[in-house]
Protein backbone atom coordinates (compact mmCIF):
# COMPACT_ATOMS: atom_id res chain seq x y z
CA UNK A 1 0.00 0.00 0.00
CA UNK A 2 1.21 3.48 -0.80
CA UNK A 3 1.71 5.98 1.91
CA UNK A 4 1.13 9.71 1.69
CA UNK A 5 3.49 12.14 3.29
CA UNK A 6 1.75 15.41 2.67
CA UNK A 7 3.80 18.17 1.13
CA UNK A 8 7.16 16.78 2.08
CA UNK A 9 8.49 13.69 0.44
CA UNK A 10 8.77 10.45 2.31
CA UNK A 11 11.38 10.59 5.06
CA UNK A 12 14.40 8.39 4.68
CA UNK A 13 14.18 5.81 7.40
CA UNK A 14 17.86 5.78 8.15
CA UNK A 15 17.65 6.28 11.90
CA UNK A 16 16.11 4.16 13.29
CA UNK A 17 14.65 1.43 11.13
CA UNK A 18 10.93 1.24 11.06
CA UNK A 19 8.49 -1.60 11.21
CA UNK A 20 5.58 -1.15 8.90
CA UNK A 21 2.79 -2.42 11.10
CA UNK A 22 1.97 -3.66 14.55
CA UNK A 23 2.30 -7.26 13.41
CA UNK A 24 5.20 -8.95 15.12
CA UNK A 25 8.09 -9.10 12.65
CA UNK A 26 10.50 -11.96 12.86
CA UNK A 27 13.44 -9.78 13.87
CA UNK A 28 14.59 -6.25 14.67
CA UNK A 29 15.19 -4.29 11.47
CA UNK A 30 18.19 -2.59 13.05
CA UNK A 31 20.13 -5.31 14.87
CA UNK A 32 18.51 -8.41 13.38
CA UNK A 33 17.84 -10.06 16.75
CA UNK A 34 14.56 -11.93 16.98
CA UNK A 35 11.69 -10.03 18.53
CA UNK A 36 9.59 -13.09 19.24
CA UNK A 37 8.86 -13.31 22.96
CA UNK A 38 10.66 -9.99 23.56
CA UNK A 39 8.55 -8.55 26.35
CA UNK A 40 9.82 -5.00 25.83
CA UNK A 41 8.94 -5.26 22.19
CA UNK A 42 5.57 -6.70 23.06
CA UNK A 43 4.70 -3.79 25.32
CA UNK A 44 6.62 -0.85 23.86
CA UNK A 45 7.69 -1.90 20.36
CA UNK A 46 11.27 -1.36 21.51
CA UNK A 47 13.96 -3.94 20.73
CA UNK A 48 15.47 -5.26 23.95
CA UNK A 49 18.72 -6.09 22.22
CA UNK A 50 19.62 -2.74 20.63
CA UNK A 51 17.02 -0.32 22.00
CA UNK A 52 15.63 0.55 18.57
CA UNK A 53 12.30 2.33 18.88
CA UNK A 54 10.11 0.67 16.27
CA UNK A 55 6.78 1.81 14.91
CA UNK A 56 3.89 1.54 17.31
CA UNK A 57 0.20 2.02 16.71
CA UNK A 58 -1.54 4.79 18.60
CA UNK A 59 -3.76 2.48 20.59
CA UNK A 60 -0.89 0.29 21.67
CA UNK A 61 1.10 3.42 22.51
CA UNK A 62 -1.70 4.79 24.63
CA UNK A 63 -2.15 1.46 26.40
CA UNK A 64 1.56 1.37 27.23
CA UNK A 65 1.51 4.91 28.56
CA UNK A 66 -1.62 5.65 30.58
CA UNK A 67 -3.10 4.15 33.72
CA UNK A 68 -4.75 0.87 32.84
CA UNK A 69 -8.28 1.23 31.59
CA UNK A 70 -8.30 5.00 32.07
CA UNK A 71 -8.44 6.10 28.41
CA UNK A 72 -11.75 7.55 27.23
CA UNK A 73 -11.74 8.37 23.55
CA UNK A 74 -13.33 11.59 22.28
CA UNK A 75 -14.55 12.51 18.80
CA UNK A 76 -13.92 9.00 17.51
CA UNK A 77 -16.30 9.52 14.63
CA UNK A 78 -14.97 12.61 12.92
CA UNK A 79 -14.45 11.94 9.23
CA UNK A 80 -12.86 13.92 6.46
CA UNK A 81 -15.34 15.60 4.09
CA UNK A 82 -12.82 15.66 1.21
CA UNK A 83 -13.20 19.41 0.72
CA UNK A 84 -11.37 19.54 -2.62
CA UNK A 85 -13.08 16.42 -4.05
CA UNK A 86 -9.48 15.45 -4.55
CA UNK A 87 -8.35 12.77 -6.93
CA UNK A 88 -4.98 11.81 -8.33
CA UNK A 89 -4.64 8.21 -9.48
CA UNK A 90 -7.64 7.37 -7.38
CA UNK A 91 -10.19 9.41 -5.48
CA UNK A 92 -9.06 10.55 -2.02
CA UNK A 93 -12.32 9.28 -0.55
CA UNK A 94 -11.52 5.76 -1.59
CA UNK A 95 -8.08 6.02 -0.09
CA UNK A 96 -9.63 7.23 3.12
CA UNK A 97 -12.00 4.27 3.10
CA UNK A 98 -9.10 1.92 2.64
CA UNK A 99 -7.10 3.58 5.41
CA UNK A 100 -10.05 3.32 7.72
CA UNK A 101 -10.47 -0.32 6.92
CA UNK A 102 -6.79 -1.10 7.44
CA UNK A 103 -6.30 0.92 10.62
CA UNK A 104 -9.75 0.72 12.12
CA UNK A 105 -9.65 4.47 12.71
CA UNK A 106 -11.66 7.35 11.28
CA UNK A 107 -8.53 9.46 10.72
CA UNK A 108 -4.94 9.81 11.91
CA UNK A 109 -5.42 11.46 15.32
CA UNK A 110 -6.83 9.70 18.36
CA UNK A 111 -7.90 11.98 21.21
CA UNK A 112 -9.32 11.42 24.64
CA UNK A 113 -8.82 11.75 28.34
CA UNK A 114 -6.79 9.46 30.54
CA UNK A 115 -4.99 9.10 33.83
CA UNK A 116 -1.21 9.07 33.95
CA UNK A 117 0.30 8.12 37.29
CA UNK A 118 -3.01 9.26 38.67
CA UNK A 119 -2.91 12.67 36.98
CA UNK A 120 -5.77 13.45 34.66
CA UNK A 121 -4.67 14.46 31.17
CA UNK A 122 -6.07 15.19 27.76
CA UNK A 123 -4.25 13.06 25.21
CA UNK A 124 -3.83 13.37 21.45
CA UNK A 125 -1.85 10.72 19.58
CA UNK A 126 -1.11 10.86 15.88
CA UNK A 127 -0.85 7.53 14.08
CA UNK A 128 1.69 7.35 11.29
CA UNK A 129 -0.06 4.28 9.88
CA UNK A 130 -3.01 6.44 8.80
CA UNK A 131 -1.83 8.30 5.69
CA UNK A 132 1.57 9.01 7.20
CA UNK A 133 0.10 10.84 10.17
CA UNK A 134 -0.65 13.73 7.84
CA UNK A 135 -2.66 16.67 9.17
CA UNK A 136 -5.89 17.44 7.38
CA UNK A 137 -9.05 19.04 8.66
CA UNK A 138 -9.98 16.17 10.96
CA UNK A 139 -6.56 16.03 12.62
CA UNK A 140 -6.55 19.81 13.06
CA UNK A 141 -10.10 19.90 14.37
CA UNK A 142 -9.56 17.08 16.84
CA UNK A 143 -6.31 18.58 18.12
CA UNK A 144 -8.08 21.90 18.64
CA UNK A 145 -10.96 20.22 20.45
CA UNK A 146 -8.47 18.44 22.69
CA UNK A 147 -6.70 21.73 23.46
CA UNK A 148 -10.03 23.41 24.19
CA UNK A 149 -11.05 20.58 26.49
CA UNK A 150 -7.74 20.87 28.35
CA UNK A 151 -8.24 24.61 28.65
CA UNK A 152 -11.82 24.41 29.86
CA UNK A 153 -11.08 21.75 32.46
CA UNK A 154 -7.62 23.09 33.25
CA UNK A 155 -5.94 19.72 32.89
CA UNK A 156 -2.64 19.23 31.06
CA UNK A 157 -2.55 18.40 27.37
CA UNK A 158 -0.21 15.73 26.04
CA UNK A 159 0.32 15.26 22.33
CA UNK A 160 2.35 12.47 20.76
CA UNK A 161 3.06 12.85 17.07
CA UNK A 162 4.48 10.97 14.12
CA UNK A 163 3.73 12.72 10.87
CA UNK A 164 4.94 13.43 7.37
CA UNK A 165 3.33 16.87 7.51
CA UNK A 166 0.30 18.39 5.88
CA UNK A 167 -2.24 16.24 4.05
CA UNK A 168 -1.83 17.39 0.49
CA UNK A 169 -5.16 15.95 -0.56
CA UNK A 170 -6.90 18.62 1.50
CA UNK A 171 -4.89 21.45 -0.03
CA UNK A 172 -4.99 24.85 1.68
CA UNK A 173 -7.41 23.51 4.27
CA UNK A 174 -4.60 21.29 5.38
CA UNK A 175 -2.05 24.11 5.54
CA UNK A 176 -4.43 26.22 7.61
CA UNK A 177 -4.52 23.54 10.30
CA UNK A 178 -1.05 24.76 11.23
CA UNK A 179 -2.51 28.16 12.06
CA UNK A 180 -5.57 26.72 13.71
CA UNK A 181 -3.68 24.35 16.00
CA UNK A 182 -1.07 26.99 16.86
CA UNK A 183 -3.88 29.38 17.80
CA UNK A 184 -5.46 26.76 20.05
CA UNK A 185 -2.14 26.10 21.77
CA UNK A 186 -1.65 29.83 22.21
CA UNK A 187 -4.92 30.02 24.11
CA UNK A 188 -3.86 27.07 26.22
CA UNK A 189 -0.60 28.87 27.02
CA UNK A 190 -2.46 32.07 27.86
CA UNK A 191 -4.64 30.10 30.27
CA UNK A 192 -1.53 28.71 31.98
CA UNK A 193 -2.46 25.08 31.33
CA UNK A 194 0.59 22.86 30.75
CA UNK A 195 1.18 21.30 27.35
CA UNK A 196 3.74 18.56 26.78
CA UNK A 197 4.63 17.51 23.26
CA UNK A 198 6.22 14.18 22.42
CA UNK A 199 7.92 13.80 19.04
CA UNK A 200 8.37 10.30 17.65
CA UNK A 201 9.75 8.79 14.48
CA UNK A 202 9.19 10.37 12.00
CA UNK A 203 7.99 13.94 12.53
CA UNK A 204 8.40 16.46 9.74
CA UNK A 205 6.61 19.27 7.92
CA UNK A 206 3.48 21.03 9.05
CA UNK A 207 2.94 19.08 12.24
CA UNK A 208 6.49 19.73 13.39
CA UNK A 209 6.15 23.40 12.34
CA UNK A 210 2.97 23.97 14.35
CA UNK A 211 1.49 22.54 17.54
CA UNK A 212 4.15 19.86 18.04
CA UNK A 213 6.88 22.50 18.46
CA UNK A 214 4.86 24.63 20.87
CA UNK A 215 4.96 22.50 24.01
CA UNK A 216 5.88 23.99 27.36
CA UNK A 217 8.05 20.91 27.39
CA UNK A 218 9.03 19.02 24.25
CA UNK A 219 10.51 15.54 24.44
CA UNK A 220 11.50 13.15 21.69
CA UNK A 221 12.09 9.45 21.42
CA UNK A 222 15.69 8.34 20.87
CA UNK A 223 16.75 8.13 17.26
CA UNK A 224 13.53 9.61 15.92
CA UNK A 225 13.80 11.41 12.58
CA UNK A 226 12.57 14.95 13.14
CA UNK A 227 12.80 18.07 11.01
CA UNK A 228 10.97 20.75 9.11
CA UNK A 229 11.92 19.66 5.61
CA UNK A 230 12.38 15.93 5.14
CA UNK A 231 15.92 14.66 4.54
CA UNK A 232 15.33 14.09 0.83
CA UNK A 233 14.05 17.61 0.35
CA UNK A 234 17.07 19.04 2.13
CA UNK A 235 19.46 16.84 0.18
CA UNK A 236 17.82 17.89 -3.06
CA UNK A 237 18.12 21.55 -2.01
CA UNK A 238 21.73 21.15 -0.93
CA UNK A 239 22.75 18.97 -3.85
CA UNK A 240 24.72 16.73 -1.49
CA UNK A 241 24.05 14.17 1.24
CA UNK A 242 23.09 15.34 4.71
CA UNK A 243 25.74 15.26 7.40
CA UNK A 244 25.36 12.17 9.59
CA UNK A 245 22.99 12.59 12.50
CA UNK A 246 21.06 15.43 10.93
CA UNK A 247 17.30 15.31 11.51
CA UNK A 248 17.63 13.04 14.52
CA UNK A 249 16.21 13.64 17.97
CA UNK A 250 19.81 13.87 19.19
CA UNK A 251 20.51 16.60 16.60
CA UNK A 252 17.51 18.57 17.83
CA UNK A 253 18.60 18.25 21.45
CA UNK A 254 22.09 19.47 20.59
CA UNK A 255 20.61 22.39 18.67
CA UNK A 256 18.36 23.42 21.51
CA UNK A 257 14.96 22.60 20.01
CA UNK A 258 13.79 19.99 22.50
CA UNK A 259 13.94 19.63 26.26
CA UNK A 260 14.87 15.99 26.52
CA UNK A 261 15.15 12.64 24.82
CA UNK A 262 13.15 10.03 26.68
CA UNK A 263 13.09 6.32 25.81
CA UNK A 264 9.55 5.05 25.27
CA UNK A 265 9.63 2.75 28.27
CA UNK A 266 10.65 5.64 30.55
CA UNK A 267 8.05 8.05 29.22
CA UNK A 268 5.33 7.21 31.77
CA UNK A 269 7.69 7.88 34.67
CA UNK A 270 9.09 11.09 33.19
CA UNK A 271 5.66 12.44 32.33
CA UNK A 272 4.45 11.44 35.78
CA UNK A 273 7.19 13.54 37.38
CA UNK A 274 6.43 16.50 35.14
CA UNK A 275 2.72 16.26 35.85
CA UNK A 276 3.41 16.16 39.56
CA UNK A 277 5.29 19.45 39.22
CA UNK A 278 2.60 21.15 37.18
CA UNK A 279 -0.44 19.89 39.00
CA UNK A 280 0.71 20.79 42.47
CA UNK A 281 1.51 24.37 41.53
CA UNK A 282 -1.63 25.55 43.29
CA UNK A 283 -0.99 23.53 46.40
CA UNK A 284 2.52 24.30 47.49
CA UNK A 285 3.98 24.40 51.00
CA UNK A 286 2.16 21.23 51.85
CA UNK A 287 5.34 19.24 51.36
CA UNK A 288 7.44 17.56 53.97
CA UNK A 289 9.50 20.66 54.60
CA UNK A 290 13.22 20.99 54.16
CA UNK A 291 15.06 17.71 54.40
CA UNK A 292 18.61 16.92 53.41
CA UNK A 293 19.49 13.77 51.59
CA UNK A 294 23.02 12.49 51.44
CA UNK A 295 25.14 14.60 49.11
CA UNK A 296 25.92 12.60 46.02
CA UNK A 297 29.35 11.40 45.15
CA UNK A 298 30.99 14.10 43.13
CA UNK A 299 30.88 13.42 39.42
CA UNK A 300 28.05 13.97 37.03
CA UNK A 301 27.10 14.34 33.46
Amino acid at each position, binding site marked *: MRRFFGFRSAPAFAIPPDVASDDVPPSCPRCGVSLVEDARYERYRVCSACGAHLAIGSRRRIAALVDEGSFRETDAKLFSA*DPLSFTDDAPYRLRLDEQRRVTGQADALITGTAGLHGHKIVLAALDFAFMGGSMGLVVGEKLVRAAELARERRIPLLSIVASGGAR*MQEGMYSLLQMAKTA*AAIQRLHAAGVPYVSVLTHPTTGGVF*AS*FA*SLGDVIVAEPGALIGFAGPRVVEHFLGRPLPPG*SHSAEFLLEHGMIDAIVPRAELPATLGTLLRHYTRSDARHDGPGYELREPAAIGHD
Partner: protein
Amino acid sequence: MIDVAEHSAVAATPTAWDRVKLARHSERPHFLDYLEALTTDWVELHGDRAFGDDRALIGGLATFDGQTVMVLGHQKGNDTKENIARNFGMARPEGYRKAERLMRHAEKFGFPLITFIDTPGAEPGIGSEERGQGTAIAESLLTMADLGVPSVAVVIGEGGSGGALAIGVADRLLMLENTIYAVASPEACAAILWKDAGRAAEAAETMRITAADLAAFGIIDEVVPEASPAHERPKDAIQGTGAALARHLRELTAEFPPHDAGAIERLRAARYERFRRIGAWREAEPTTRHSDEGGISAPRNGRSGEPRESAQRSG
Protein backbone atom coordinates in the same frame (compact mmCIF):
# COMPACT_ATOMS: atom_id res chain seq x y z
CA MET B 1 13.28 31.44 -15.50
CA ILE B 2 9.82 32.19 -16.89
CA ASP B 3 9.49 32.77 -20.60
CA VAL B 4 8.12 36.30 -20.68
CA ALA B 5 6.66 35.85 -24.17
CA GLU B 6 4.69 32.88 -22.96
CA HIS B 7 2.23 34.80 -20.86
CA SER B 8 0.75 36.54 -23.90
CA ALA B 9 -0.86 33.16 -24.51
CA VAL B 10 -2.66 33.74 -21.20
CA ALA B 11 -6.06 34.66 -22.51
CA ALA B 12 -9.28 35.71 -20.80
CA THR B 13 -9.48 32.51 -18.79
CA PRO B 14 -6.02 31.61 -17.55
CA THR B 15 -5.49 28.12 -16.23
CA ALA B 16 -4.18 27.46 -12.74
CA TRP B 17 -0.77 26.80 -14.25
CA ASP B 18 -0.91 30.14 -16.06
CA ARG B 19 -1.53 31.76 -12.71
CA VAL B 20 1.44 29.93 -11.24
CA LYS B 21 3.67 31.36 -13.96
CA LEU B 22 2.24 34.84 -13.51
CA ALA B 23 2.60 34.64 -9.74
CA ARG B 24 6.28 33.79 -10.18
CA HIS B 25 6.97 36.26 -12.95
CA SER B 26 10.30 37.92 -12.25
CA GLU B 27 9.05 41.34 -13.35
CA ARG B 28 6.02 41.21 -11.16
CA PRO B 29 6.15 43.95 -8.51
CA HIS B 30 7.74 42.70 -5.31
CA PHE B 31 7.30 43.73 -1.70
CA LEU B 32 9.61 46.73 -1.81
CA ASP B 33 7.81 48.10 -4.87
CA TYR B 34 4.55 48.11 -2.94
CA LEU B 35 6.28 49.57 0.07
CA GLU B 36 7.85 52.41 -1.85
CA ALA B 37 4.67 53.32 -3.67
CA LEU B 38 2.20 52.96 -0.82
CA THR B 39 4.05 54.20 2.23
CA THR B 40 6.24 56.97 3.57
CA ASP B 41 8.55 57.28 6.57
CA TRP B 42 9.92 53.76 6.09
CA VAL B 43 12.38 52.68 8.75
CA GLU B 44 13.60 49.16 8.20
CA LEU B 45 14.25 47.26 11.42
CA HIS B 46 16.82 44.52 11.06
CA GLY B 47 17.70 41.36 12.90
CA ASP B 48 16.34 38.75 15.26
CA ARG B 49 18.65 39.87 18.11
CA ALA B 50 19.99 36.35 18.36
CA PHE B 51 21.63 35.07 15.21
CA GLY B 52 21.27 37.07 12.04
CA ASP B 53 19.40 39.39 9.75
CA ASP B 54 17.41 37.64 7.06
CA ARG B 55 17.28 39.56 3.76
CA ALA B 56 14.47 37.35 2.42
CA LEU B 57 11.95 38.44 5.05
CA ILE B 58 12.16 42.08 6.01
CA GLY B 59 10.15 44.53 8.02
CA GLY B 60 9.91 47.91 9.59
CA LEU B 61 7.76 50.90 10.41
CA ALA B 62 6.04 53.02 7.79
CA THR B 63 3.23 55.48 7.37
CA PHE B 64 0.31 54.04 5.42
CA ASP B 65 -3.04 55.72 4.97
CA GLY B 66 -2.12 58.35 7.52
CA GLN B 67 -1.12 56.03 10.32
CA THR B 68 1.95 54.15 11.43
CA VAL B 69 1.94 50.47 10.58
CA MET B 70 4.38 47.62 10.97
CA VAL B 71 5.06 46.12 7.57
CA LEU B 72 6.57 42.69 6.95
CA GLY B 73 7.15 40.91 3.69
CA HIS B 74 9.09 38.33 1.75
CA GLN B 75 11.38 40.00 -0.74
CA LYS B 76 12.35 38.30 -3.97
CA GLY B 77 14.95 39.79 -6.27
CA ASN B 78 14.45 41.06 -9.77
CA ASP B 79 17.56 39.43 -11.15
CA THR B 80 19.91 36.61 -10.24
CA LYS B 81 22.23 38.73 -8.14
CA GLU B 82 19.38 40.21 -6.14
CA ASN B 83 17.76 36.83 -5.85
CA ILE B 84 20.89 35.37 -4.35
CA ALA B 85 21.05 38.25 -1.86
CA ARG B 86 17.38 37.68 -1.05
CA ASN B 87 17.71 33.88 -1.05
CA PHE B 88 14.92 33.80 -3.68
CA GLY B 89 12.47 34.97 -1.05
CA MET B 90 13.02 31.86 1.05
CA ALA B 91 13.25 32.90 4.68
CA ARG B 92 15.43 31.22 7.26
CA PRO B 93 14.60 30.75 10.95
CA GLU B 94 16.16 34.10 11.81
CA GLY B 95 13.72 35.70 9.37
CA TYR B 96 10.73 34.26 11.18
CA ARG B 97 12.25 35.22 14.52
CA LYS B 98 12.72 38.77 13.27
CA ALA B 99 9.10 38.73 12.12
CA GLU B 100 8.05 37.61 15.59
CA ARG B 101 10.09 40.36 17.20
CA LEU B 102 8.56 43.00 14.96
CA MET B 103 5.05 41.69 15.51
CA ARG B 104 5.53 42.07 19.26
CA HIS B 105 6.97 45.52 18.64
CA ALA B 106 3.83 46.43 16.69
CA GLU B 107 1.65 45.11 19.48
CA LYS B 108 3.54 47.02 22.13
CA PHE B 109 2.97 50.33 20.41
CA GLY B 110 -0.46 49.63 18.95
CA PHE B 111 0.64 49.66 15.30
CA PRO B 112 -1.50 47.55 12.94
CA LEU B 113 0.38 44.89 10.98
CA ILE B 114 0.44 44.49 7.20
CA THR B 115 2.22 41.52 5.66
CA PHE B 116 3.13 40.92 2.03
CA ILE B 117 3.43 37.24 1.15
CA ASP B 118 5.69 36.19 -1.74
CA THR B 119 7.80 33.11 -1.19
CA PRO B 120 8.32 29.69 -2.74
CA GLY B 121 8.52 28.44 0.85
CA ALA B 122 10.75 28.49 3.88
CA GLU B 123 14.35 27.57 3.10
CA PRO B 124 14.89 23.80 3.45
CA GLY B 125 18.66 23.95 4.06
CA ILE B 126 20.69 22.19 6.71
CA GLY B 127 21.47 25.46 8.49
CA SER B 128 17.76 26.18 8.66
CA GLU B 129 17.20 22.76 10.22
CA GLU B 130 20.00 23.37 12.71
CA ARG B 131 18.50 26.67 13.79
CA GLY B 132 14.98 25.29 14.05
CA GLN B 133 13.01 26.24 10.97
CA GLY B 134 10.01 24.28 12.23
CA THR B 135 10.24 25.80 15.69
CA ALA B 136 10.57 29.32 14.30
CA ILE B 137 7.58 28.95 11.99
CA ALA B 138 5.46 27.43 14.75
CA GLU B 139 6.31 30.28 17.09
CA SER B 140 5.55 32.86 14.44
CA LEU B 141 2.14 31.28 13.85
CA LEU B 142 1.44 31.38 17.57
CA THR B 143 2.59 34.98 17.94
CA MET B 144 0.52 36.16 15.02
CA ALA B 145 -2.54 34.29 16.28
CA ASP B 146 -2.13 36.08 19.60
CA LEU B 147 -1.30 39.54 18.32
CA GLY B 148 -3.12 42.37 20.07
CA VAL B 149 -3.32 44.60 16.99
CA PRO B 150 -5.30 44.22 13.75
CA SER B 151 -3.50 42.54 10.86
CA VAL B 152 -4.02 42.25 7.12
CA ALA B 153 -2.03 39.90 4.87
CA VAL B 154 -1.89 40.03 1.11
CA VAL B 155 -0.44 37.46 -1.27
CA ILE B 156 1.33 39.42 -4.01
CA GLY B 157 3.00 36.48 -5.76
CA GLU B 158 3.70 33.01 -4.47
CA GLY B 159 2.14 31.88 -1.22
CA GLY B 160 4.33 28.88 -0.58
CA SER B 161 3.35 26.60 2.25
CA GLY B 162 4.34 27.08 5.91
CA GLY B 163 6.88 29.71 4.99
CA ALA B 164 4.03 31.88 3.69
CA LEU B 165 1.55 31.04 6.42
CA ALA B 166 4.07 32.04 9.10
CA ILE B 167 3.26 35.67 8.29
CA GLY B 168 -0.29 34.97 7.12
CA VAL B 169 -2.28 34.37 10.32
CA ALA B 170 -4.08 37.68 9.86
CA ASP B 171 -7.53 39.13 10.49
CA ARG B 172 -7.98 39.60 6.75
CA LEU B 173 -6.31 37.72 3.92
CA LEU B 174 -6.24 39.15 0.40
CA MET B 175 -4.79 37.75 -2.81
CA LEU B 176 -4.04 39.43 -6.08
CA GLU B 177 -5.87 37.82 -8.94
CA ASN B 178 -2.83 36.15 -10.46
CA THR B 179 -1.30 34.77 -7.31
CA ILE B 180 -1.35 31.35 -5.71
CA TYR B 181 -1.38 30.02 -2.18
CA ALA B 182 -0.68 26.37 -1.69
CA VAL B 183 0.30 23.68 0.77
CA ALA B 184 3.08 22.62 -1.64
CA SER B 185 4.41 23.76 -4.98
CA PRO B 186 2.67 22.13 -7.95
CA GLU B 187 6.01 20.59 -8.92
CA ALA B 188 6.45 19.02 -5.47
CA CYS B 189 2.84 17.88 -5.50
CA ALA B 190 3.20 16.22 -8.90
CA ALA B 191 6.42 14.58 -7.81
CA ILE B 192 4.70 13.09 -4.80
CA LEU B 193 1.42 12.15 -6.49
CA TRP B 194 2.74 10.82 -9.77
CA LYS B 195 6.50 10.76 -9.24
CA ASP B 196 6.63 13.16 -12.16
CA ALA B 197 7.30 16.84 -11.56
CA GLY B 198 6.48 17.38 -15.21
CA ARG B 199 2.81 17.00 -14.41
CA ALA B 200 2.91 20.21 -12.35
CA ALA B 201 0.26 21.91 -14.49
CA GLU B 202 -2.14 19.09 -13.77
CA ALA B 203 -1.30 19.25 -10.06
CA ALA B 204 -1.84 23.01 -10.04
CA GLU B 205 -5.40 22.45 -11.23
CA THR B 206 -6.10 19.63 -8.80
CA MET B 207 -4.75 21.51 -5.78
CA ARG B 208 -7.12 24.50 -6.04
CA ILE B 209 -4.52 27.13 -5.35
CA THR B 210 -5.71 30.21 -7.22
CA ALA B 211 -7.22 33.29 -5.66
CA ALA B 212 -10.57 32.41 -7.21
CA ASP B 213 -10.49 28.89 -5.75
CA LEU B 214 -9.61 30.12 -2.28
CA ALA B 215 -12.23 32.86 -2.42
CA ALA B 216 -14.80 30.21 -3.32
CA PHE B 217 -13.69 28.18 -0.30
CA GLY B 218 -14.11 31.24 1.90
CA ILE B 219 -10.45 31.01 2.87
CA ILE B 220 -9.61 34.51 1.63
CA ASP B 221 -11.52 37.73 2.09
CA GLU B 222 -10.96 39.50 -1.19
CA VAL B 223 -9.39 39.07 -4.60
CA VAL B 224 -7.59 42.19 -5.78
CA PRO B 225 -8.27 42.27 -9.53
CA GLU B 226 -5.52 42.50 -12.12
CA ALA B 227 -7.08 43.89 -15.30
CA SER B 228 -3.71 43.19 -16.82
CA PRO B 229 -1.11 40.97 -15.16
CA ALA B 230 0.70 42.90 -12.44
CA HIS B 231 4.06 42.84 -14.20
CA GLU B 232 2.50 44.59 -17.20
CA ARG B 233 0.63 47.22 -15.22
CA PRO B 234 2.41 47.37 -11.85
CA LYS B 235 0.90 50.72 -10.93
CA ASP B 236 -2.62 49.38 -11.27
CA ALA B 237 -1.85 46.31 -9.21
CA ILE B 238 -0.17 48.33 -6.49
CA GLN B 239 -2.94 50.93 -6.46
CA GLY B 240 -5.62 48.27 -6.20
CA THR B 241 -3.74 46.52 -3.43
CA GLY B 242 -3.23 49.75 -1.51
CA ALA B 243 -6.89 50.65 -1.73
CA ALA B 244 -7.97 47.21 -0.54
CA LEU B 245 -5.45 47.22 2.33
CA ALA B 246 -6.58 50.67 3.45
CA ARG B 247 -10.23 49.65 3.36
CA HIS B 248 -9.72 46.49 5.41
CA LEU B 249 -7.44 48.22 7.86
CA ARG B 250 -9.95 51.02 8.40
CA GLU B 251 -12.73 48.50 8.98
CA LEU B 252 -10.60 46.62 11.47
CA THR B 253 -9.40 49.66 13.39
CA ALA B 254 -12.96 50.98 13.52
CA GLU B 255 -14.21 47.69 14.93
CA PHE B 256 -11.23 47.11 17.20
CA PRO B 257 -9.83 50.47 18.27
CA PRO B 258 -6.20 50.33 19.40
CA HIS B 259 -5.34 50.87 23.07
CA ASP B 260 -8.77 49.54 24.08
CA ALA B 261 -8.26 46.39 26.16
CA GLY B 262 -11.78 45.14 25.55
CA ALA B 263 -11.46 45.61 21.81
CA ILE B 264 -8.14 43.76 21.81
CA GLU B 265 -9.74 40.79 23.53
CA ARG B 266 -12.58 40.83 21.00
CA LEU B 267 -10.03 41.02 18.22
CA ARG B 268 -8.17 37.98 19.51
CA ALA B 269 -11.41 36.07 19.93
CA ALA B 270 -12.55 36.97 16.40
CA ARG B 271 -9.25 35.89 14.92
CA TYR B 272 -9.40 32.60 16.77
CA GLU B 273 -12.93 31.97 15.57
CA ARG B 274 -11.88 32.85 12.04
CA PHE B 275 -9.35 30.02 11.93
CA ARG B 276 -11.33 27.78 14.22
CA ARG B 277 -14.25 27.41 11.86
CA ILE B 278 -12.34 26.83 8.62
CA GLY B 279 -13.15 23.51 7.06
CA ALA B 280 -15.70 20.76 6.84
CA TRP B 281 -15.98 17.29 8.27
CA ARG B 282 -18.53 14.62 8.98
CA GLU B 283 -19.49 13.78 12.51
CA ALA B 284 -20.74 10.28 11.67
CA GLU B 285 -19.65 7.23 9.72
CA PRO B 286 -20.04 7.80 5.96
CA THR B 287 -23.09 5.79 4.97
CA THR B 288 -22.94 5.74 1.17
CA ARG B 289 -20.33 4.05 -0.93
CA HIS B 290 -18.73 6.55 -3.21
CA SER B 291 -18.39 6.07 -6.93
CA ASP B 292 -14.93 5.48 -8.31
CA GLU B 293 -15.01 8.99 -9.72
CA GLY B 294 -15.02 10.35 -6.21
CA GLY B 295 -18.08 12.54 -6.73
CA ILE B 296 -19.30 14.10 -3.50
CA SER B 297 -22.79 13.05 -2.64
CA ALA B 298 -22.66 12.41 1.06
CA PRO B 299 -23.78 15.27 3.28
CA ARG B 300 -21.12 17.39 4.92
CA ASN B 301 -21.50 18.41 8.47
CA GLY B 302 -19.74 21.06 10.48
CA ARG B 303 -18.93 20.34 14.06
CA SER B 304 -22.20 21.71 15.35
CA GLY B 305 -24.05 19.18 13.25
CA GLU B 306 -25.75 21.51 10.81
CA PRO B 307 -24.97 21.08 7.11
CA ARG B 308 -21.98 23.08 6.12
CA GLU B 309 -20.57 23.54 2.66
CA SER B 310 -16.87 24.08 3.27
CA ALA B 311 -16.03 27.24 5.15
CA GLN B 312 -18.23 30.27 5.50
CA ARG B 313 -16.56 33.61 5.81
CA SER B 314 -18.20 36.79 6.93
CA GLY B 315 -15.34 39.14 6.07
